[in-house]
């Protein structure tokens, strides 16, 4: 059974109450991560733009994308590592990674 995301009503393209002051993000998901929220147009994708309400944090973005909460994520905002409390701003470029390594 499909469980609607708590933010699902906010993201219908033509009816977002934040449409004129939402924050536009460029999102890239890596190493197997995908957008898991079926209510988003980007469901199943790894490279997409997304509008979010102003004040959305990195942690909240993770919940919007419905990424498995048990995975320890690494998030870069404009090429800087940022924690879950970081507030996202308009035109931010976000890269999200699960734990990876090499050398």
């Amino acid at each position, binding site marked *: 059974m499909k469980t609607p995301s708590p933010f699902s009503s906010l993201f219908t393209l033509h009816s977002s109450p934040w449409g004129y002051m939402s924050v536009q993000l460029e999102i890239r998901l*890596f*190493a197997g991560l995908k957008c898991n929220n079926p209510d988003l147009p980007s469901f199943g994708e790894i490279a997409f733009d997304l509008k979010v309400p102003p004040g959305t944090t990195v942690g909240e973005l993770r919940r919007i994308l419905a990424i498995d909460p048990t995975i320890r994520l690494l998030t*870069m905002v404009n090429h800087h590592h940022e924690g879950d409390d970081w507030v996202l701003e308009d035109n931010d470029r976000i*890269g999200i*990674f699960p734990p990876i390594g*090499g050398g």
Partner: protein
Amino acid sequence: MDKILRIDMGAPDGPKIKTEPVGEYAGLGGRALTSVIVAKEVHPLCHPLGAENKLVISPGMLSGTAGAMTGRLSVGCKSPLTGGIKESNAGGQAAQVLARLGYAAVILEGKPAGDDLYKIYINKDGVKIEVDNSLKLLDNYPLVARLREEYGDKVAYMTIGSAGERKFLAASIACTDPQLRPTRHCGRGGVGAVMGAKRVKAIILDDAGMKMRPPKDPEKYRDANRKFVEGLRKHPVTGEALPAYGTNVLTNILNEAGGYPTYNFKQGQFSGSVNLSGEAQAELEIKRGGTATHGCHRGCVIQCSGIYNDKDGHYLTKQPEYETVWSHGGHCGIDDLDTVARLDFMDDNIGVDTIEMGVAIGIAMDAGIIPFGDREGAIRLMEEVGQGTPLGHIIGSGAELTGKAYGVERVPVVKSQALPAYDPRAVQGIGVTYATTTQGADHTAGYAIATNILKCGGDVDPLKTEGQVELSRNLQIATAFIDSSGMCLFIAFAIMDQPETFQALLDMMNAFYGLNMTGDDVVALGKKVLSIERDFNKRAGFTAQHDRLPRYFSTEPVAPHNITFKVTDEELDEVFNW
């Protein structure tokens, strides 16, 4: 591993074999043993291609046992590339087999007069050395194919390609994987040139009739190994990311972090990076009937290697590593995986360090020999290396020589060894390692990327100087230990984050040798190895001024962070202050 095999290649009546008890070197293995022997027995001012240099081949302390991940082999000498002490290591089967044959080390000494080429066969009955000039200038793949006709498929091969015979400074020593592909290389520092200077083309290791090395306490060893493997499987890097994508999973994160050196370290991001990524590579490999999950030695549970087929499904090369994809890819402005794979095959076949070669080709591009991004041009330059043309000699001897020959101002080397795939301005911690390690610019010697970028074992901001000296110091010490243990270095991700997995490794060591090692003993051994290496380098003429990055890294910022390398000389000189 209770004996040492010495082979005097320069004895007047032909190579002379001497087997002796391990003696004072008992209990040492891998890098600890190669560095102790080189520091003690090699004159620091000798010519690396001369008779006074020695090539010391040593399996790690736990190699040849039933333990997981124990396939690492160390090769040590005075490096013809850096002029300092060198330890270059590889996976593959050689460590396991040599250890089971009971050898703590094989030491090639002296240098024969004349042009004859030798192969050395070692089995349980002893050592046979023969001239075989029919092998002259064979590259590694046809060489191993030829040797298999004589020695079969149940052996491990260590070989040099034409590059080693020609004594190129980028020449490597190839070790075969379990499927007998010559794809696991002791790559850095020109160790293949030393083997070639001693006129040894191949070492064939046959452990038929030998058993796994028995632990002092087999039950405790089994138990510790089980916990160790559980830890590796549980950790998301060793248990998921590396088996799924291999090391090239790093392309996207380094690019995102702005630390992916592009067009010879001119910028920190490459527009073609997604085409080169580990994710794209794994998808392509699987689609073409290869694999992204393969172990380079028996006993590997991380399985970070793979098989890369061409578009028709035929074997092209082993899965290229991150460093190789970068050096032939973004560093050169090439965004095509098939080109990178072709170059990787040529590196393995000719027998050269993929990092040194890729950086040298990028320098050639900066010099205008070919343009950046020229795929066919890069392949042509590699062909010249394989043919031993004059230009091939220059490029095959690495980035610094190529840069000097063509008047290139910005040549990314430390102690004459090319920088690997991380810009030190965007990742300050790896810059400290590059500058200060005894090995020349080397990323594995103290892999600060783990903590700067991957947030493994802690979190140190890559763009600030705070904490970088301590980070590099601690990693260099820990790595010197792991390089001696026989363990693949990638266990570090799990043991850094999971104390119980680190304890399991200690328990394995203690159960095998009947010791009571603690974390303090790990640190003590690591420090001892580094101190011995530093002392050799000092006697070889190195000073604090050699522990520096090229000046332009401190004066020229790199995008997107517009940042320079900011760790001071005084801070760099603190790394080894114990």
